[in-house]
C-alpha cells in the first residue's frame, strides 16, 4: 500500500469513527506496523497543519482523533451546536488536578491532600468521564484507585500525561503567589 492510499485510509477511519482510535487498530487496518503507521500519521498531521484545512489530527496517548482547528471556532459557532462545556467548580478542579498528577490515587489520599472529603468531587469527575476507576489498591479495604481518562486529555488539550503542565517547585512558588493574589483580589471585591 502506498503512502497516499494509507493516508486516505487513515483519514477515512478517523473521520468515520469520530472518537479517538488506537494506533494498533489503525495499523492493523492498513496492514502496516505501528511505527510505520505512526510515521504516516505524523506526516498527515504536517499536511493538516498547512493552510486550507479546517481539521487536524489530535494525538492522545496512543490514540488519534480528528477535530477542528481551534482557529475555526468562530465560523463553527455560527453553525454548529456549541459543545457542552463542562464547568468544574474549584473543588472539583482541585480534585482533578490532584488525580491528574498523582494517579493512580485513592480517595483517602486525595482527602489527605485537600484536607476535606472528596466523594462528591470524585463522583462528579467520574460522571463527566474525566476520571475513571483504574483498579484497586492492594491494601486493607481494597480502596479504588482513580486516574484520568482520554476525555480528560482531550478536554485539557494534553497529548499525554507527560505533557501535563510541569510542576516546577521554584516557579510554582512564584506562580502561586501570583495566582493567589488574583484570587485574593477576587475575594476582596
Amino acid at each position, binding site marked *: 500500500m502506498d503512502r497516499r492510499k494509507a493516508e486516505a485510509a487513515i483519514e477515512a477511519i478517523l473521520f468515520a469513527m*469520530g472518537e479517538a482510535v488506537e494506533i494498533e487498530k489503525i495499523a492493523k487496518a492498513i496492514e502496516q506496523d505501528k511505527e510505520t503507521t505512526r510515521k504516516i500519521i505524523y506526516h498527515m498531521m504536517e499536511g493538516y497543519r498547512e493552510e486550507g484545512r479546517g481539521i487536524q489530527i489530535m494525538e492522545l496517548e496512543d490514540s488519534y482523533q480528528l477535530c477542528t482547528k481551534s482557529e475555526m471556532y468562530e465560523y463553527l459557532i455560527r453553525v454548529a451546536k456549541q459543545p457542552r462545556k463542562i464547568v468544574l467548580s474549584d473543588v472539583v478542579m482541585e480534585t482533578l488536578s490532584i488525580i491528574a498528577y498523582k494517579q493512580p490515587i485513592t480517595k483517602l489520599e486525595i482527602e489527605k491532600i485537600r484536607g476535606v472529603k472528596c466523594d462528591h468531587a470524585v463522583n462528579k469527575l467520574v460522571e463527566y468521564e474525566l476520571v475513571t476507576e483504574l483498579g484497586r489498591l492492594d491494601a486493607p479495604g481494597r480502596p479504588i484507585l482513580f486516574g484520568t481518562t482520554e476525555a480528560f486529555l482531550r478536554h485539557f488539550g494534553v497529548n499525554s500525561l507527560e505533557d501535563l503542565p510541569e510542576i516546577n517547585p521554584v516557579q510554582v512558588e512564584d506562580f502561586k503567589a501570583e495566582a493567589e493574589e488574583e484570587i485574593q483580589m477576587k475575594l476582596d471585591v
Partner: protein
Amino acid sequence: MGIPVKLQVFEGPLDLLLHLIEKNKVNIYDIPIVEITEQYMEYIKEMQSENLDVMSEFLVMAATLLDIKSRMLLPPEVTEEGEEIDPRAELVQKLLEYKMYKYMSYELRERQEDAAFHLFKEPTIPDAVKAFREPVDIGKLLDGVTLQKLHALFRDILRRQDDRVDRVRSSFGNIRREEFDLSETMHFVEHYIVEHANCRFREILTLRSGKMYMIVTFLTLLELMKEGKVEVEQPETFADISIRYTGKEGETSELSGDYD
C-alpha cells in the same frame, strides 16, 4: 476582627489557612502560629455551619493549630540527629502540597479554555460498514473440537442434569392428569349390570381401577336405582351390595346420554 469575605468561599481548612497566610503576608515556612490560629478560630466561630461534616473538618484543623501552638511554647523536641523539630513542619508540608495542586488546577483550567475551541464529531460509520458481518469460518471456529469432545460434553450435561434432580422430591412420583371418559364409564358399568343381571358392587369395582371409576360406578348405580332399573340390597353398613337388574334390555344408552 471582622470577616472580610464570604466563608463559603473556602473549600476546606487548608484553603482557609492559605488565605490567612496570604492575607497576613507572612512566610509559609515561618507561620506566626499564634496570630494565624487566633484568626482561624475567629473564622470558624463565625461559620456556625449546620453541616457537621464540613464543620468537623474545620474543627480538626483548629485542634491541630492549637496543638502546634502549645508545642511552640514548650522546649523544642529534637531528632536523633540532634535537629530541632519545628512543630509546624508537617502543616507547612501539607499547605505547600495543597497550594501546589491548587495552583495546578488553575493551570489546567487555562488549558481547558484553550482546548475548548476544538470541535469533535459523532461517529458516522456508513451503513455498509455497520451491516458487515464477518464470514464465519466454521473450520477455524470448531478447531480442536472433535466428535469425542462433543460426545463427552453431552455426557457431562446428562450427568449434571441428573445431579440437578432432587432425589427426595422426584421419588414422590408424578401427578398425572386422569384421562377419564365419564359417559364411556357409565356405559360400561350399566352394560355390565344388564349383562350379568345379578352381580355385586365390589365385583364391578374390580373390573377397572382408579378413584374416578369407583365414584362413577357408584353414581351409575344410584342413577339406575332412581330410574327403577335395578334393585339393590346391602345387609349391613360397609357390606357388599348385591345388584339385580330389573329393566328391559336395550335401554342402556339413555342413561349415559344425560351425562355427556
